[in-house]
């Protein structure tokens, strides 16, 4: 569903991505791992059209992403759950969720209600706290809210940028297992993570980034056993 070829991205004068090839196939959970500064966030921002490429192509469902504005890409089903969650702290949980679907043109009011009920079934904690200001949620709940908001947009591909950031290891495990079950239900997920072992355990396929290049790629089970993975982090 996503195909990236020889992608180069610069921010200011510094070259962040230096020729990335990457494929996300339908129904897979693909992990993109690497130490900080490797270029993971830059890559995901380029995928969702927030950064433009200096060279190379990105195709989403066969169409180049730079032909569409980021908000139209999102409506078309390429949904980005940004790093740091970016929920609207002053709105309630339910209002945050509705932001997700309000902008999707082909969602009617009644199906929106259905979507909302579906999300509440998926995340009972959000149902209990639906009238609470989102800023009052714990970090883990906020991350769930951010993911749930993304799901309200009926994504074809859900891209998550470091959902584990600042969360306790146990909460991270819960979120990763939940992502796995979304994939079992047919969703396609691109997961950007620093915590490689955790991410690889739930992923089908993985790419390891370092210094703006893909240095390892393959089925996650193979990568998990590869000592080069550890080396890519700690030198």
């Amino acid at each position, binding site marked *: 569903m996503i195909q990236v070829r020889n992608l180069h991205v610069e921010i200011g004068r510094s070259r962040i991505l230096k020729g990335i090839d990457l494929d996300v196939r339908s129904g897979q959970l693909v992990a993109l791992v690497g130490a900080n500064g490797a270029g993971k966030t830059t890559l995901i921002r380029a995928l969702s059209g927030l950064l433009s490429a200096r060279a190379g192509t990105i195709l989403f469902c066969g169409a180049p992403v730079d032909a569409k504005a980021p908000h139209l890409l999102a409506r078309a089903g390429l949904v980005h759950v940004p790093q740091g969650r970016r929920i609207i702290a002053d709105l309630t949980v339910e209002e945050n969720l509705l932001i997700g679907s309000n902008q999707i043109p082909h969602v009617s009011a009644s199906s929106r209600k259905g979507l909302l009920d579906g999300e509440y079934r998926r995340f009972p904690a959000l149902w209990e706290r639906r009238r609470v200001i989102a800023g009052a949620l714990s970090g883990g709940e906020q991350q769930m809210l951010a993911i749930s908001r993304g799901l309200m947009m009926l994504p074809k591909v859900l891209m998550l940028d*470091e959902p584990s*950031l600042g969360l306790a*290891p146990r909460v991270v495990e819960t979120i990763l297992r939940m992502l796995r079950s979304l994939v079992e239900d047919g969703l396609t997920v691109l997961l950007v993570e620093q915590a*490689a072992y*955790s991410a690889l355990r739930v992923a089908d396929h993985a790419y390891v980034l370092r210094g703006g290049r893909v240095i390892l790629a393959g089925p996650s089970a193979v990568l998990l056993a590869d000592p080069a993975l550890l080396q890519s982090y*700690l030198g």
Partner: protein
Amino acid sequence: MSANFAAPWIRYVIFALVVAVFPTLAPNAYVINLGQEVAILAIGAAGLNLLLGLSGQISLGQVGFFALAAYCTAILSARLSWPLWLTFPAALVVAGLAGLVMGLVALRARTHFLAMATLAFGLIAAILAQRWISLTGGSMGIAGVPLLNWGQFRAGPTNFFWTIGAALILTQIVSDFTIESRSGRILRSIKESESFAATVGVNAPLWRVGVFVLSAVLAGLSGAFFPHQSGFVSSDAFTLDRSLSLLIVVIVGGLGSRYGHLIGAVFVVLLGEAIAGLYEYANFIFGGLLLAVMLFLPRGIASLTTIVRRRGEGSAEGRLESRSRGRLPSTLAPIADWEPGEPILLLDGVTKRYAGVTAVNDVSMVVKSGTVHALIGPNGAGKSSLINVIAGLTYADRGSIIFAERDVTRASAYRRARLGIARTFQNLQLIGGLSVLENVMLGLPRRDKAVAYFLRWLGGRSFEAEQRNQAFALLEFFGIGRYAALSPDELPYGHRKLVELARALAQQPRLILLDEPVAGLNEEEAVEIVQAVRSLRALGVTAVLVEHDMGFVMSLSDRITVLDYGRKIADGSPEEIRRDQSVINAYLGVPAS
């Protein structure tokens, strides 16, 4: 920083000659009166130019200082018959005190809040002038204010012009000195980033208040002349229009430039006369003018002239002595007074919380003198928070920080900088309005007595030659002397990082904090930084660095401290850290069991 035309004092001699002959060349009293208007406007605008153009603080309340001084001298001279040589200083003191108060307000309120606060001050002054009739006479005003004519009625306008012309020259000297000397560099750096200014040892709040007082005194000086021009003063003169016209003058003239306020004042006065017949449209025309200048000529009319082109660095460069790369004159050597291997920085139980999040949790560490000590950890581990706590940009909630056997836990950032903690920034802090050389000069310690410094500036030529040579030597030490005259934005990214290092070294630091020194650099540039840090270590400087590039960290560091979730999880040599299971878990997650 000597000007294009020789020494500053020559400029003022020429300026004085122009002032002296202007009334004799003027065909009639009307033109002399225009000259007076220009001078009144330019003096007030010079103050606003320093405030807004250099330090980046906005004021819409300059009319308040203007009115205070005007009423002060009018009332004291007309009602209490004080002589003008007493009422003028009194008026300046009153305006300065009001400036002090507003300057303190400005420490709390920034940007648009400051605009609102100063606007309120201006409004209050205007309303008091209008309504406190027993004191000000309201719109009926105070008549019978002595004219400033040195006792000669017929030559009055000329004498007034000469007097205010002298005041304008003094203002220009103060303004030029502020812009061209060390203080200009400091104020520009405060405008760019206060936290940066603090890390080169600048007491930023003091400077901000100081420049507010200066701008208020200049607004007051302009206001003090006002009632003595016509012998009458009423509240009609003190509407917000006056604040706004000062703003128009400095923006149209060119913010932060040396002659912008003069050019702007001439322009605004002449334009005002030219459209006097279109009174109803005046605001419309001035508004449109402001908009046009901001759109098409954002640096003002002054940027069109050659007068304010880059200040002579090009010519100065030839005079700078070139030294070979990698060698540093002994006068610039960092203070290496600590026995290598002795602890120079001790953190004990340091905790930092932000709004319920514990960013740094009970971290203790020892940094030994003469070592490169890396601070690593996954995203959000608390590295930046910890380095900010060490630099003093934020304070620890618990625990203590001992630097060079002093407890600096509560010392402010600029004090720590003066004790020998220098730093570089992840997102470079180089001052765009200054040349590369001047950026490095910001780091040099101040050695001169103020008066001698001022006189050397006035004399021109060798002004700051020594500092320039030193800054150049520091650039050469890192092999980038050829960039001295350029603006930092014109340099490749990697070399900008070296400029920051040169500036940090200029502070003759004991300890240098490096925040992601190779982030965003290519391999070649990163190698240059590695060499630079090694040469700093060879000079005896201790370095604490935060960096993500593990190759860089492992090859360069003597010791590594690892943070995760704000806690220290490991501490050791690069070899030990590579093998440490808790470090592996922190970075990669827990391996499958």
